[in-house]
């Protein structure tokens, strides 16, 4: 598979945040590297993790000879999730989606869902052949 472009540092930081957000426990640079993808150099991951730590986005605790990182304070604060729900309501309230542009995807109806599954399985078969 093609590896695509080299990541921008902002892109990689976001990826790492997303990865740590759903991790069950603090992760070492090696674990993050394994999770995100093999084409990334270990030092790149480590540098980015320390940068995020310096920005106070992460906290770390020693584990073995490395550090294990996790998101600071966690995002589960009541305030953030309340606001997120308000945003969601705003998002779904009107049809003018310009202000809150572009959810990644929208709700599918049953028929579209069926079609989508067919498209994917066709693509998978085509790949196998």
């Amino acid at each position, binding site marked *: 598979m093609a590896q695509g472009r080299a990541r921008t540092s902002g892109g990689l930081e976001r990826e790492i945040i997303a990865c740590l957000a759903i991790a069950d426990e603090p992760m070492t640079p090696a674990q993050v590297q394994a999770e995100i993808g093999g084409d990334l150099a270990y030092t790149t991951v480590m540098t980015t993790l320390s940068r995020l730590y310096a920005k106070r986005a992460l906290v770390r605790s020693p584990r073995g000879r490395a550090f294990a990182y996790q998101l600071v304070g966690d995002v589960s604060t009541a305030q953030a999730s309340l606001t*997120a729900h308000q945003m969601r309501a705003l998002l779904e309230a009107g049809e003018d989606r310009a202000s809150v542009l572009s959810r990644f995807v929208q709700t599918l109806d049953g028929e579209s869902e069926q079609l989508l599954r067919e498209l994917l399985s066709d693509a998978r078969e085509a790949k196998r052949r």
Partner: protein
Amino acid sequence: MILAAAFVPFLVGGVGARVARRVATGLPPVAAVALLTTLAASVAAGCAVVLLLAGLLALAEVPTAALGHVSVDALRDHVPMPPAVGFAAAAIALLMVLSVLWHALRLATRAGSIDAATARLGPAVDNLVIVRDPGALAYAVPGRTPRIVVSTGMLRALSAPERRALLAHEAAHLRYHHQCYVRLGQLAASANPLLRPVCRAIELAVERWADEIAAREVGDRVLVAHAVAAAALAHRPAPRGALAAAGANVLDRVRVLLTPKPRRQPVAAALSAVGAAACWVAALLLADHLDELLELAHRISSGG
């Protein structure tokens, strides 16, 4: 002869509505967005100009009008249009302008409340805010504090490379100011309901634009297709109706991403481009013609 030009913007609007979706899927997305927004703006402006000119003509027949005294007979000879039609046209044009203003105002207030909401979302690293929510949700919020909001439910529904694609997609929306194109389309459609399909096509083209940026970032269009599909399937538990057309967007996006070389739509593209240009030409021709006509009628009237 020249009066036939009055119908051009409306005709182009009708044709545009029919081919817009094909333009959105059958052109490189950046070109599609540029073409569709130009088309929407041209049709909206062209229709408004034609209606305003018709109103002006009707007004010229009113003896006390500020335009001075003109020979009504001379005007009628050239433009067999009852004044009532002209005034109705002017009223519609006025409605269009009011509708655009109203819509712009609503957009502005909404943007304000969303800015306020994003400010409360708390700290973000590189604009990314992650929300603890089992529902699958991801969106980009443009504005004073641009944000990418993703729920943990969405992150869990995707593999690591798919997450990368999702983040690249949302970042592309913010980086290329996609909301501007969508807003322009919405304003045009609020002036002229004929343009609603064009507006929806702009939304689709903008999503495709972000999809292709994501595909370039991860180097794999099929992977992006799977990310879009996985996200859409995970997003299921909120069937609120009214969004069926949006479901069609997901299908089209996935379909295009799975096609190695998307089928081009040169005819739809050419129709849209020529149509957009024709709107401006028609408006200019008509304005010029009306100017001449009024001058002539004025001369006849004052010359006796």
